[in-house]
């Protein structure tokens, strides 16, 4: 039966603490024993549910307006989740009604925030507490902040069209990242200077894994404000703009392997 003998199990303790990987699992014959197997299934179920959850845009808009923030509800050209998954190009563009709505608004801002569901609508629950910490830092430096855009079925690049229409110098897209097995609610923050349709990922900076169990709000806000300030000063974002805040060396963000497509794209 349970197959890691007690003696091995005891000696595992120090190593097991060094990683969240599923090591030292109890066995049943060659297979993983029931409890550990079901723990995996639960983690996957939560990740799947996170992908399929719909964004409660009304509640999000309410939350923003109760803070006195102007908001604009938008929708991408991907009409539903299936279209979103199959056609990345549609999630990067606004639908016609959203485009027209934005085009009719006044423009010319230092910065515009977009909140998008991406691959995890539940991750957007971290957007409000993050803004609560980040906006005061920006107000301190007299940033002209545009309306907060809430985009359903949106990908990172939808910020390019939004920022372009609002003539924003900088756009920050707060978006649900692809859920991991132990992180169904990671929020990413993607910064793009001089947003316009056709920007590439190499022209963006990203803070990843924003959530209480990952990068806490206050730390994320500090780093976001730092990147925004540097982007404005140097008039660029992307690979030439490094995050040099003291905590950056501990960043668990996007691994730079040649195997990994961007998590939200």
């Amino acid at each position, binding site marked *: 039966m349970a197959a890691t003998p007690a003696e091995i199990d005891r000696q595992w303790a*120090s190593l097991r603490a060094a990683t969240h990987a599923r090591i030292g699992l109890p066995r049943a014959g060659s297979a993983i024993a029931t409890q550990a197997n079901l723990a995996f299934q639960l983690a996957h179920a939560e990740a799947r549910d996170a992908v399929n959850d719909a964004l409660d845009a009304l509640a999000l808009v309410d939350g923003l307006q109760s803070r006195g923030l102007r908001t604009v509800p938008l929708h991408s050209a991907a009409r539903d989740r299936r279209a979103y998954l199959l056609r990345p190009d549609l999630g990067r563009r606004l639908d016609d009604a959203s485009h027209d709505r934005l085009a009719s608004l006044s423009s010319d801002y230092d910065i515009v925030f977009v909140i998008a569901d991406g691959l995890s609508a539940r991750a957007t629950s971290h957007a409000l507490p993050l803004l609560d910490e980040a906006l005061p830092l920006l107000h301190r430096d007299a940033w002209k902040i545009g309306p907060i855009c809430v985009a359903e079925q949106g990908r990172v690049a939808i910020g390019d069209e939004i920022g372009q229409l609002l003539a924003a110098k900088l756009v920050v897209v707060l978006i649900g990242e692809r859920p991991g097995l*132990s992180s169904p609610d990671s929020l990413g923050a993607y910064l793009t200077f001089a947003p316009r349709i056709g920007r590439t990922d190499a022209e963006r900076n990203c803070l990843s894994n924003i959530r209480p169990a990952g990068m806490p709000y206050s730390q994320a806000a500090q780093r976001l404000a730092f990147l925004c300030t540097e982007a404005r000063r140097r008039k660029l974002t992307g690979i030439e703009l490094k995050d040099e805040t003291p905590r950056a060396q501990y960043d668990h963000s996007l691994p730079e392997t040649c195997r990994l497509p961007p998590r939200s794209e």
Partner: protein
Amino acid sequence: MYATTIRGTRYAFQDLKSLMAKAAPLRSGDCLAGIAAASAAERVAAQMALADLPLSTFLNEPLIPYEEDEVTRLIIDSHDAEAFAPIASLTVGGLRDWLLSDSATSATLTALAPGLTPEMAAAVSKISRNQDLIAIAAKCRVVTRFRDTIGLPGCLSSRIQPNHPTDDPKGILASAIDGLLLGAGDAVIGINPALDSPQRCYDLLRLIDDLRAKLDIPTQSCVLAHVTTTLRLIKQGAPVDLVFQSIGGTEGANRSFGIDLALLREAHAAALSLRRGTIGDNVMYFETGQGSALSANAHHGCDQQTLEARAYAVARAFKPLLVNTVVGFIGPEYLFDGKQIIRAGLEDHFCGKLLGLPMGCDACYTNHAEADQDDMDVLLTLLGVAGVAYVMGVPGADDIMLNYQSTSYHDVLAVRQTLNLSPAPEFAEWLKAMGLMNDRGLVRPEALPAPFAPLLTKA
């Protein structure tokens, strides 16, 4: 122009790559590229037209022009006409029938491999059912060696993939030891670094090489860094066993990976110069995956499975120890669900084996694909039946750095037990000597092997 008529309806295909694309079993990446068949009937019509196509067509009509693409030039220039001669008069359909016939033995298939182009293999796969892909691949034998022997009949090897989100050495060591205790690692102990920096990769190489040396394990180590990083490490005297690189099936796809054939040749020569293999000199490790060319906008209007097969032409030019497709990693816009992932995994294994590669597979999926561990069980079992050289061993199937799910050390044990497969013979001897494998060939350790004890306490 190619065409076929079915009960009065004429289906026309404007060129060879269009015929290939429309004959491909349905997958989201070809739909995304706008080149898939418009209907199920059109798909079969294309398959019928393709079945009647003489194989020699592929030698005379490159899908991507010879002048524009160095992968095409590699395919055409390295084609072995003598090996091709026995099937030179066949059509694609005739080749399928021949491959399934008793004339196609392990020996004749080995002799045939240099005479096949990737496009021929891809074409046959498109008119084959999963059963055919399994039955034919199971007849192919490709054996490679470095410190142990990969690909022998009755063997299934595995890679230990002990990744960690911050490359923490202790965390990586923990996952690697877990794998060894579960009988994994005879293909390679291979780490995907979270950060592709030379210093980081050097430290990880030392870590795994020390582990291997201390325990005297007959296997090889690899840090799956970019080839330029590994080249630099070789020049600095790092203990590089295998050179890794992701590769694609077009010159443009390879450029998006930051490589070309000349760079791979340089790396291959550098790795050979180290002479670290004890029983063989297969020193390259390649990963591939359908959809990489399209995602790099370098697909030339070709379907993703054909381009995947062309990546194998790149691989086989370097006599690799290991090649695996990372079949579900790329996401649902290329392979939507378990059905598409399973089909693609079998196609990739089939084409790789037919072209003479030591083909393995990372049977995997992301959380936004319509797939789950049951689908991986199906694919892993089918690949085991098809004679796959190696698969992945990830702790609990959950890669905490790359954020996707693959196959676990336990899954490998289960498939070995069910299908009566063994690890590489040298590695099996080591497992027995360590007391990790019993007389029935099952990995059932009753105590921690003595040489492991200092690793657990000191780590």
